[in-house]
């Protein structure tokens, strides 16, 4: 019930393409496109798709990672070959690594609903702010 509500979008996809076998490849196509074009966010599509396909939450997270990692590697290489300079990459990388460990350690101590809500709020604010000049 919860996963069905989570992914209205995919239920629309389901109605358009009733062939079950097409569902995962379609979700993969969309996720790859978003990941390559915007430099992230593919996991946000793969994760609900896997939950919709009947994966339990924990293995959906793990499997989504196994899908997004090679896709990210390939698009990162394309960005590299297209000549994006990487002088500023090091501080960001150090930050995300430290932050990643911190976040993983914090996770068990926080309420998931609060966190999810906060994250959605931040995404909304970031999105609206980026629409403005």
């Amino acid at each position, binding site marked *: 019930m919860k996963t069905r509500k989570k992914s*209205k979008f995919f239920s629309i996809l389901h109605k358009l393409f009733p062939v079950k076998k097409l569902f995962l*490849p379609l979700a*993969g196509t969309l996720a790859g496109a*978003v990941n390559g074009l915007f*430099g992230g966010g593919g996991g946000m599509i793969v994760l609900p798709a*896997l939950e919709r396909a009947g994966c339990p939450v924990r293995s959906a997270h793990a499997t989504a990672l196994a899908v997004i*990692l090679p896709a990210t590697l*390939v698009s990162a290489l394309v960005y590299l070959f297209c000549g994006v300079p990487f002088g500023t990459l090091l501080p960001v990388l150090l930050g995300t690594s430290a932050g990643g460990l911190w976040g993983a350690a914090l996770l068990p101590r926080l309420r998931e609903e609060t*966190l999810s809500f906060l994250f959605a709020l931040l995404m909304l604010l970031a999105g609206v702010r980026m629409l403005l000049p």
Partner: protein
Amino acid sequence: MSFLLLFLAGLAGGVFGGMGMGGGTLLIPLLVLMGVPQKFAQAMSLFSFLPMSAAALSVHAKNGLIERGKVLPLALPAVLCSALFALLAFFLPARALRTGFAVFLVFLSLFRFRAALSSFLAEKGAEK
């Protein structure tokens, strides 16, 4: 751009990434609003995703959490499309990418709000 500011932006994005919430989706707007060009921010998001997720993935694999049968049908088109669209991103104007990503973020956040609200209500219902 100062080392410290970039480090802090990475830290903020990384905290959410470590919680499994897609750090890149916050890292990109943070970097862009700090004045990093859109395409650099995207490239940084991609690269900074790699080490942490490779580490996490190896742990998940050891724990047998990966559903192998579902990886290939998802990953094959995802890898092909991510290469194609990364190329496309290079030919598109940065402004278009910024707007497109912003719209994607707004949609994602609305879906998230719905999901958060429905799980909150379900919990309330269970308490009664």
